[in-house]
């Protein structure tokens, strides 16, 4: 018989059982403002600002007062990635194109009539770039910076698919990271000059003679005001104002061509002048709606699926009047009553990055080769550097369909099994271990070329329940008692029920596969 575990709620370090079942939510410790926040608040704070927090991380926070913990998260944000950058980031677009062409020619030509397996540099650099970021998300000591970087990437979208110059995307990512908790106004001004953006939204070819409206439209619709708050004439004016901002073909750097700029009179949102790009941005930043739009988006990312209009207005007012400093806004958001409202715990759906990066982190899985993780993200609909369109990822409920839900379960199963069956670093050589193992388990074929975890990839042979018993918990989870394991992994009671009498491994497996694990 399976015993349903009820989550314990820690009050000042003392354990107490909650009556969570009646409300369907874990109960919360009564607030003791300046005292230790306790396990549940610590868990919630980390679940929204980190990836896959471990029991030790929660424990180190639970004794701290809530406000100081928030301040700690926001102090001295890392402005550069820890992971060493790929070595090609200095390569300009022209050089990359030359290499790409020569590789394509080489491939076509071949040697002795044999087609060559030639590495296409655009694709290869793109792969390295995605792996680089996934590695940074896994290893960083400041996950909130990565979350914010990903947030800005989803807001100011640019995709490799269109840009086809990974160095530019790398530099754009460096910009998002630098300003992750910096200043929105300077971020917006930098993005308008960002080469990847200029390529992605066709600004680089926009000239006085023939202004391109792509960037202008998205600037108004997606980056600042939102649809319906401007007219077509405004878009045309903005397009003209940004003409002449371009990208140098050789270096890939921003370049201004005054001779291609339309410096005539423009009327934008009722104001007239010989506006250039910066004047347009100044006007946009003065609009209350710009700040509100950012706050709404951040709310959906960090607090709940349904922004509270009054709170948004309040927070946005402070944001705009404070000169668009992001840190105080995030502080206010994380300290808000809504963020700490127990009803909002487990009220967000994990993004694919949350799920994949978080699970790798919490399980402590060593994954030297990240390509497999990126492919999982691809299957689940969130490839870094390749948002589906200019609107970025819709997120929220759209993350979950019958297909992606089953796929999520499959990937989680795969990770659980990876703790005991298939090494994450690419398998063993069959020559060294003849097929006994494969025979016994019908495990997937292993070979030196094998990579772990492409989309629906089999590690088959045992039912999940058996797999659970074979789970080998890494240092992140080993030795932790069952109740804390559940409390760490799930934001609320298990939906599907977890057998509390199982081994720690079986409990971890069941928790990861519980519907509640999809929530954060």
């Amino acid at each position, binding site marked *: 018989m399976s015993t349903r575990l009820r989550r314990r709620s820690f009050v000042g370090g003392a354990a107490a059982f909650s009556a969570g079942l009646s409300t369907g939510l874990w109960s919360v410790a009564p607030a003791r403002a300046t005292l230790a926040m306790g396990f549940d608040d610590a868990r919630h704070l980390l679940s929204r600002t980190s990836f896959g927090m471990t029991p030790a991380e929660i424990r180190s926070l639970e004794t701290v007062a809530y406000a100081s913990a928030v301040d700690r998260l926001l102090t001295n944000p890392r402005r550069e990635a820890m992971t060493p950058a790929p070595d090609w980031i200095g390569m300009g677009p022209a050089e990359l194109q030359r290499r790409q062409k020569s590789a394509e020619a080489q491939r076509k030509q071949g040697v002795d009539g044999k087609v060559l397996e030639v590495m296409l540099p655009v694709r290869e650099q793109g792969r390295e770039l995605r792996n680089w970021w996934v590695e940074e998300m896994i290893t960083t000591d400041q996950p909130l910076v990565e979350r914010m970087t990903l947030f800005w990437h989803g807001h100011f979208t640019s995709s490799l698919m269109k840009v086809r110059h990974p160095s530019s995307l790398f530099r754009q990512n460096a910009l998002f990271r630098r300003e992750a908790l910096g200043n929105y106004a300077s971020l917006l001004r930098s993005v308008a000059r960002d080469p990847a953006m200029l390529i992605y939204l066709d600004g680089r070819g926009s000239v006085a003679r023939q202004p391109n409206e792509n960037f202008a439209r998205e600037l108004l619709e997606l980056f600042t005001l939102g649809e319906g708050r401007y007219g077509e004439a405004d878009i045309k004016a903005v397009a003209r104002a940004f003409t002449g901002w371009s990208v140098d073909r050789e270096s890939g750097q921003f370049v201004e061509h005054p001779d291609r700029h339309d410096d005539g009179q423009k009327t934008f949102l009722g104001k007239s002048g010989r506006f250039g790009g910066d004047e347009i941005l100044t006007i946009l930043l003065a609009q209350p709606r710009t700040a509100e739009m950012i706050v709404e988006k951040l709310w959906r990312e960090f607090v709940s699926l349904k922004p509270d209009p009054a709170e948004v207005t309040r927070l946005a007012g402070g944001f705009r009047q404070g000169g668009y400093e992001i840190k105080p806004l995030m502080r206010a958001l994380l300290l808000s009553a809504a963020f700490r409202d127990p009803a909002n715990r487990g009220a967000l759906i994990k993004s694919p990055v949350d799920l994949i990066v978080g699970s790798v982190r919490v399980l402590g899985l060593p994954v030297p080769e990240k390509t497999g993780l990126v492919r999982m993200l691809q299957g689940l609909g969130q490839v870094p550097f390749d948002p589906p369109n200019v609107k970025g990822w819709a997120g929220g409920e759209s993350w979950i369909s019958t297909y992606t839900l089953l796929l999520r379960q499959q990937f989680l199963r795969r990770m659980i099994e990876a703790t005991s069956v298939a090494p994450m670093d690419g398998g063993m050589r069959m020559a060294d271990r003849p097929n006994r193992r*494969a025979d016994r388990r019908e495990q997937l074929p292993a070979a030196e070329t094998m990579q772990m975890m492409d*989309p629906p990839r089999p590690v088959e042979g045992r039912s999940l329940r058996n797999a659970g018993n074979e789970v080998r918990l890494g240092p992140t989870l080993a030795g932790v008692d069952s109740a804390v394991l559940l409390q760490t992994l799930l934001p609320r009671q298990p939906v599907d029920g977890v057998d509390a009498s199982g081994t720690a491994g079986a409990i971890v497996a069941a928790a990861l596969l519980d519907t509640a694990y999809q929530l954060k």
Partner: protein
Amino acid sequence: MSRILLLVELKGGNDGLNTLVPYADPRYRELRAGIGVSRERVVQLDEKVGLHEKLLPLMDSWRAGDLAIVQGVGYPYPNRSHFRSIEIWDTASAASQTLSEGWIAQTFRGARLGKGIGVDCIVADTNALPSTGPSLRTIVMQDAENFLRQANGVAAESAMNDGGNPALRHLLAVRQEINAAAAGLRDRLRDAPAPAEAYPQELLLGRQLDLATRVLSASVPVVAIKVALGGFDTHANQTPTHERLLGFLASNLAVLRRNLIAANLWKDVVVMTYSEFGRRAKQNASGGTDHGTSAPQFVMGGGVKGGLYGAYPSLSDLQDGDLRHTVDFRNVFATLARDCWGQSYDFGLRQPQRLDFLAQ
């Protein structure tokens, strides 16, 4: 006309040369001096090729004329990575192209499928890629028992337990949708007769075919079912492993055939084996074979026109030590799309050359 495709994935890269043996070619003995199948262990099909004797259980089907063997199936610019190559097969892509939609799902793009019971494909192993895509609803029943059990649990609880949490409500609604399919399946499966003859349970394939037989007997309206047999990655000391796998495959498929004939379903089903690649023509130093290229495929069913299709790749005209394919697998898929499901999808082939192994 509509038939159900039963895919049998042979995981790891099945050695085609020791499956359908070119026994009459002296080059075969040279390339396979140690692990070659000796003449007297080959069940002759024609003057050139024959089956490994472990495949003897398939001879009923061959004699009855409902076993087709497509020879030399592969694709241009072969990739020798397990994952990449099976992905190429499962998405019917060119070697240079990465697609995310499975070939069966592509076949049904824009087609109007009946509502059925909420599921179009059942995958009994773990790799659902062939039917992955927006046009089809695929249920992965890697562990049918567990799947149905979980479905039960959530269905009962979901209505009351979202606690006013919209994110959870959405998750439960999607689960509900999956569960509806599962429930439909469960009801049908509960009433389905057990197969007339039990499957060997030694490896998972037997259990998967048991499930497949029940799904078919229960008239669950699916377009495809997928099962798999693993362990074909025989880099070292190949013979005992490979023979065991071939014997197991053949005996299971023979049981499947008898069961479906007994249930009067054999004419409605097309069974097809496939593998990510064949193996290198020349054996390696460890008494095994390394990753290669083309290999034969078995196609069985009451509507199948038995015999050999395609040409056996030449053993004296190897490409980089590998067999040159003579049939592009996408032509096999295009044949199935037309003759199983009446769809004219051509998988990006400029000139699809459909084979004629299925009666119209």
